[in-house]
Structure formats: structure tokens, C-alpha cells
């Protein structure tokens, strides 16, 4: 019994080590660079993963499984934030450190641009931010976004339009955008 528990912990630790950085980056992008919130969600996700590790089906990778748990935790967090309609997710610090993406240069924009995007997203209300992330970062359809957020597709369409306009306004105020879009 003890041996089984030790084996379980050993296997979890190994899979955890392999996937931690990926899951952290996944959550960091979806909290718009909020380091504190990211740490909380990553902690909750891995605790839940450990608690239900026996139910982990090897049909998908551990990384994918952990990300799906993290996605649920993010949804809970955004729902709370949207309900409270408070601005506690407002960005007050510099975005957490993004790794140097020099080897991923084909489509990746500069580090400064990423920081500006994160900053602009963090300035938006939680409902706008979450809608944009679901639609454009996770690539969900309007119908799927509506299902996650719990609103009608028509309402989500309106939210996305307003969110996009709000994002553009904030983003254009950041360095390097004036020339391109004005």
C-alpha cells in the first residue's frame, strides 16, 4: 500500500515536472499576465490534478489534462470576477516575465508587443477580457463562448464587438501602435 502511494507520488511528480512550465504559461496568458492570480490558479489546478490523479486516463497527455483542469479553474475565477463586477483583476504590476521567444520567431511578435497586449487586456473589464481570450486565444466559436459564459450568442456577439473596440482604444495608447493604426 505504502509502496503504491510512493509510486503514485513519484509518477505524479515526474509528469508534473515535465508539464509545469507549459501549464504556467497557459494560465498566465489567460489571466492577461496577472502573476498572483496565475499562481493561485496553477496551485488549484495541480492540487485538483493530484487529488484526482487516479482518474487520469492516459488517452491524452498529462499536460493536456492539467490544462483542462486549469481551464475550469480559470472559468470559475472569471465567473466570480464578472459577478462581482469589481476591478480586482486590474493590472497593477508589470506583466510576469515572459520567456525569450527568439526561437519561435515565425509568427511571434516582439516581447514588447506581447507585454502591451497583456497590459491592454488587463485594463479591460473581466467580462470583456474573458470573452476576447475565449474567442481569439482559445479559438472558440461565438456559440461556444456563449455556452462558457452562460449568455446568448447574440449577447456574446455584442460583448465581443465592444470588447474589441475597448481593446483597440487601450492598445493604441501603448507604445509603437500609433503609427500602425492611426
Amino acid at each position, binding site marked *: 500500500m505504502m509502496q503504491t502511494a510512493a509510486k503514485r507520488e513519484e509518477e505524479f511528480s515526474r509528469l508534473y515536472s515535465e508539464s509545469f512550465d507549459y501549464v504556467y504559461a497557459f494560465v498566465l*496568458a489567460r489571466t492577461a499576465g496577472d502573476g498572483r492570480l496565475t499562481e493561485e490558479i496553477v496551485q488549484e489546478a495541480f492540487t485538483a*490534478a493530484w487529488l484526482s490523479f487516479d482518474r487520469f486516463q492516459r488517452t491524452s497527455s498529462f499536460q493536456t489534462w492539467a490544462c483542462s483542469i486549469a481551464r475550469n479553474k480559470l472559468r470559475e475565477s472569471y465567473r466570480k470576477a464578472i459577478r462581482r463586477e469589481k476591478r480586482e483583476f486590474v493590472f497593477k504590476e508589470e506583466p*510576469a516575465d515572459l520567456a525569450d521567444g527568439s526561437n519561435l520567431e515565425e509568427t511571434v511578435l516582439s516581447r514588447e508587443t506581447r507585454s502591451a497586449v497583456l497590459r491592454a487586456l488587463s485594463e479591460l473589464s473581466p467580462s470583456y477580457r474573458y470573452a476576447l481570450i475565449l474567442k481569439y486565444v482559445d479559438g472558440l466559436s461565438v456559440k461556444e463562448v456563449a455556452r462558457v459564459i452562460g449568455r446568448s450568442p447574440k449577447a456574446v456577439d455584442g460583448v465581443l464587438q465592444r470588447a474589441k473596440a475597448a481593446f483597440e482604444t487601450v492598445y493604441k495608447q501603448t507604445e509603437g501602435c500609433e503609427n500602425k493604426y492611426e
Partner: protein
Amino acid sequence: MKISMNERDFINLLTSIDAPATPPEGLKESVLKSAIREGTSSEPVLSGFERLIFEKPFRAAGLASAAVSGALWAILGSGFPALVSGWIG
């Protein structure tokens, strides 16, 4: 004149945030330690039936009541309403 971003620029900008990131030093170790500690010290794992009894007692009572009533109705047929009204008095 202001030109709004086209959809493609917008998608490129937003997807650019999905990039590798460096977690703060020591976070990886502390998250693992905390997850395992919390998981190990947590309450014993309950089976589905035990969870129903202890976590949702009203639902369990409702289900039991419906099952017993259904069984009695099936056995007694038209005598079931008389039995119920007899119990009620």
C-alpha cells in the same frame, strides 16, 4: 483618420500572448509540495453512494422515499392510496 485593426491583425496580436513564460523562482517546487500535502492530508475519499448520503442528505432522502413509494405502489396497486390515507389517518 483612424483605421481600425483588421481581424487578422487582431488575431495575431491576441494569439501572441500564448507564448512560453518563465515561472518565478521556487514556484514549481512550492506548488508541488503544497498540492501533495493538501491531497494527502485531506479527508478519506468517499464512494458515490457515501457522497450522496453525507453531502446531499435531502436528495438521498427524496430518492429513498420515491423508491419505497414506487415499490409499494407496484406491489399493492390500487390498495396503495388506501394504505397512504390509512397512515395519514
